[in-house]
């Protein structure tokens, strides 16, 4: 229920004054309301919950987190630890 699914914005249009988008979830496409994340642009990723985009996924933060994971344990290895 609270599961938000990440997807990529593929198309944006206006419907009754509201920004809508087609979002691709790894092959499954859904129409999504962008009222809460109006600055989403084509090609960006968002978390979608029950038909509404809730937040823009921040690429720089994602890369930083992954870099942190990749560096985990490497220092110990270089120092001859575990």
């Amino acid at each position, binding site marked *: *229920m*609270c599961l938000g699914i990440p997807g990529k914005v593929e198309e944006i249009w206006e419907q009754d004054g509201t920004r809508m988008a087609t979002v691709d979830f790894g092959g499954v496409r*859904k129409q999504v309301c962008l009222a809460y994340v109006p600055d989403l642009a084509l090609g960006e990723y968002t978390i979608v919950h029950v038909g509404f985009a809730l937040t823009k996924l921040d690429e720089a*933060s994602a890369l930083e*987190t992954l870099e942190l994971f990749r560096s985990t344990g490497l220092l110990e290895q270089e120092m001859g630890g*575990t």
Partner: protein
Amino acid sequence: MKYLDEFSDPVLAARILDDIASRVTKPWSIMEICGGQTHTIIRHGIDQLLPGNVTLIHGPGCPVCVTPLEIIDRALIIAARPEVIFCTFGDMARVPGSRTDLLQVKAAGGDVRLVYSPLDAVRLAQQHPDRQVVFFAIGFETTAPANAMTVRLARQLGLSNFSLLVSHVLVPPAMTAILESPSCRVQGFLAAGHVCTVMGTKQYEPLVHRYRVPIVVTGFEPLDVLEGIRRTLFQLEDGRFELENAYPRAVTSEGNAVAQTVINEVFKVCDRQWRGIGLIPQSGWRLSAAYADFDAEERFDVRGVVAQESANCRSGDVLQGAITPPECPAFGQECTPRRPLGAPMVSSEGACAAYYQFRRIDIAAPTRRGSAPVS
């Protein structure tokens, strides 16, 4: 898929697990609030990969599971009315009420529709002006923006045949109730990432300081959950209690300001019963006075309906982390996803359903882990 695959990398998971194992010196108990995280943990066996002295306690963060029985009974009464089209998220359709569930009401001729989004219910109201369309608006803060926008849209469209049966719940008061409980074993929390996309992380700052408890806002992929656990454990080992954000790609301190504005316009905070837990003060949202004419409980006069829980279902103990699902005598016996006694066996975020789906073969085996101390 981007943002999914790279956060499921087994090589990186092993590194984080090694890092955790090298730092943990004492037994610790951490609660993951959100049922989505419970599913990630059980599905990937994260609880079994952690050092034996780290216990994960599953929290009450499954909205379907905590929706009180009397609200479900009210839904069943409304859904059975001939003029009503009753719209619900699929998870809710099989949750047992006192005597029946929404799918059985549908089988008996009720017009129950499973929808993906509350906007689908508005569309149905537009298409069927001669019918009363009711949307079952349950959920945590994550779902509130969608439901709030739907009511606003219904008003803009002048729909007089649309209403909401609202049973919204809030995470911070539930965490307070858990921390205030005399039997509380929780020493640190993984806060629910998607709730925080809406409300921001700042809501949790007072809890951290008042209860001197680490709270780490955590995502849902395996590496996200491991990172949340790692940061919580490191705080506990260091004797720190801080609010940390381990899901920065999706969550900010302030949350979604537009969503908060619309929520505050459409809803107001109220006391709320939680199924299996009881009344938690100021723990829910109901429609505000400005939108009271969209309240299905008033429109169909069901506010007086009360209900009694089944004595055989221990979902209250499961929801409060007092027992794990296999410790319930009914688990996998008289209670299965096909014939559930309680809501946690139904929902895709319910702890009982997670154990049934991913663990029942292990549980059936004689040497089961988790019930005995592990060295």
